[in-house]
């Protein structure tokens, strides 16, 4: 049992990867109902309660990655670019919040980058004359192209 305590303390200090293993062996609820808890009071050292190790910000970073991937997928669907815009902005805010929580793994950067790609792609798919986009604007803003694009969306979405 003393070795169990030592295992506890070690597992608490070695980071998030041990969380799942720790849950398997020592669940919170069992600890206080076991008889060994009564014996712990007689030890010299204080038993550290095995709180679940929650990595702050990790869920948000994963969520931002998922939203970034979805926002990239929705770029190529005509007016689904709006969905792409909204999801990418939410993903960016989530990644920023994860950064503020102190989560510094690569998942956060990946979520940020995918949301950025989704944002820029959504803008290109939708907006005209965002401070007059560069040379691409010359191709896509000629009169015939605008008319053809408007006709396409008009017919595709059922003559709104």
């Amino acid at each position, binding site marked *: 049992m003393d070795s169990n305590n030592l295992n506890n303390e070690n597992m608490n200090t070695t980071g998030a990867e041990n969380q799942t293993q720790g849950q398997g062996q020592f669940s919170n609820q069992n600890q206080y109902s076991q008889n060994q808890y009564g014996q712990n009071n007689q030890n010299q050292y204080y038993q550290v309660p095995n709180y679940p190790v929650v990595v702050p910000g990790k869920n948000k970073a994963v969520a931002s990655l998922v939203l970034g991937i979805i926002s990239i997928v929705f770029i190529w669907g005509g*007016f689904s670019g709006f969905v792409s815009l909204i999801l990418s*902005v939410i993903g*960016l805010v989530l990644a*920023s919040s994860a*950064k*503020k929580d102190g989560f510094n793994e690569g998942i956060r*950067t990946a979520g*940020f980058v995918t949301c*950025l790609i989704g944002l820029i792609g959504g803008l290109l798919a*939708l*907006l*005209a*004359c*965002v*401070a*007059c*986009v*560069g*040379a691409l*604007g*010359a191709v896509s*803003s*000629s*009169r015939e192209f*605008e008319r053809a694009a408007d006709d396409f969306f008009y017919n595709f979405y059922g003559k*709104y």
Partner: protein
Amino acid sequence: MQRENAVYIYVFSALFAMLGAKILYLLVSAGDIIKAYGNTTNYLGLTVELIRGGFVFYGGLIGALIGINVMTRYYGLVKNDYISILVPCIPLVHAFGRIGCHVVGCCYGAPTHSHFFSVTYQDSIYAPNNVALVPVQLTEAVIEFAIFITLVIIGIRIKEKSLVLYIYLIAYPIARFILEFYRGDEIRGVFAGLSTSQWISLILAAYAGTKLYRSVGKPGVK
């Protein structure tokens, strides 16, 4: 971490900038928008078109500056560290945007008589075609590139980094004020003889001028 902080602040201030530009566009064109809503039968299409197009640069500038302030406070960073890095980006981005304006034909100039210093569009959907216009977009692009290089050099040499912002806020509004007299598209509202951009230029230049004037003589200023 420093570079990553700057990237995050830049992206979010760009989002703030787009919001600000759109808000200023809605404010300036409020009368036309209300009239258009009264005349149309296709409300969804009109709303989509309003979301899709129509931005004013000064709203974007003010939105970006608000964004920098908000995000540096959100992350608990010192604003002055990042201003001298982020502010020179603004004229650089704007210069490329102006080149795009020149290629497409929006933000066009007034008709001119000069045969050398003019641009004539044949197929533009924004500018009047087959009319010789003053190439204000190219002029502004060149001026913005010059401002960018100047800001970078000053930002490297100066000790009080926050002054880079005020130098930009004097240089660009002066250039914009002068160029606005050569502009041919007055859709953005005219108040008492000067357009909205000129009024905002005056306000920004006055604000930055007072800030610069007050900081002369403090340690670190040339």
